[in-house]
């Protein structure tokens, strides 16, 4: 198997996603579940950025010497996944904050963070 940079990044992103998914299903503590969710998020971001990477190329920023307006399309990588991930990280922080606020509210009512204590809608 010949590993290149983007393949390592793909494998890493996938492993983090799987670990996050597994943790989210098996853990009992609400904070642990949210932590697993945020690991899943990081893995997904690495995966998307790795899909836009081209080996041997550089960042799509014109600096006047190595990257000029003329050769931008020849030496720079795909900028679209980066733009998507940029917003996805900020949104990820927003969802994590929302989940944590709900966890705090639940904790104020039940004095516990164990998911098995919340049986109100269980039947």
């Amino acid at each position, binding site marked *: 198997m010949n590993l290149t940079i983007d393949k390592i990044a793909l494998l890493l992103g996938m492993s983090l996603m*799987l670990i996050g998914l597994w943790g989210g299903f098996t853990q009992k503590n609400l904070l642990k579940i949210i932590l697993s969710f945020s690991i899943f998020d990081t893995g997904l971001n690495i995966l998307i950025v790795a899909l836009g990477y*081209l080996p041997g190329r550089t960042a799509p*920023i014109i600096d006047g010497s190595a990257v000029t307006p003329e050769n*931008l399309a020849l030496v720079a*990588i795909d900028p679209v996944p*980066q*733009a998507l991930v940029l917003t996805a990280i900020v*949104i990820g922080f927003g969802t994590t*904050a929302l989940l944590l606020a709900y966890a705090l*509210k639940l904790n104020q009512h039940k004095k516990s963070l164990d998911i098995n204590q919340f049986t109100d809608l269980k039947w």
Partner: protein
Amino acid sequence: MKIKNSLVILLVMAFGVFLFQVYKQHQTQGSLNKTAAYYNTNTPDEVGASNVVTAIVVTYRGLDTLGEVTVLFLTAMIVGYILRHGGKEKPMKNNTSEILITAANVLIPGSIILGVYVFINGHLTPGGGFQGGAIIGTAITLMILADPLGSVKKAVLHITESLSGFTYILIGLAGLLFAGGFLDNRILPLGNLGNLLSAGAIPLIYSLIGLKVGTELSSIIASINETGNKTA
């Protein structure tokens, strides 16, 4: 319990197989696809920004960014709403250490200036509104840590946030009137590639996004930090 555990293992394994298909089908690309080639070829002429990622975030996909900032605003509002009955934390003795307070006084102005630098230069160097906003949010978090009893005025945060959001939409509408469409940056002259005052309205729009994101992140942290432990 046994059944549940094996179901989880089965589900994770199924997802793993699905991901492995993605990995197997992935081929290292040799050249850009059409969309990326368009952006990389035409950004210097059409938008005038050195940083192509900034050009995409602010201009080509400006509506996405507007929606994203709206989602963040809603998050800040909902966090404030669901934690509103918690009551203020009872004012304990302010036991912050002297070292933290002194260090915070030195570091906070520098961090805020770094944040402003990052979002004003967003069209020239790596960085921009989201990164600068996050740095400003970190500075205000440090302020909360150094003085937990509240030197952070939430009203100031809310007013800054609303004003910058409102101006952002006004600039977008100006693009509709004076240039090619909503959020078009060519309402101001494009200038020379690489100058600070270039790329039309991009520095203006990204500064507003930076202020908005920074105040939203700080108000999320502040409202979670202020919640007491009384049950509603």
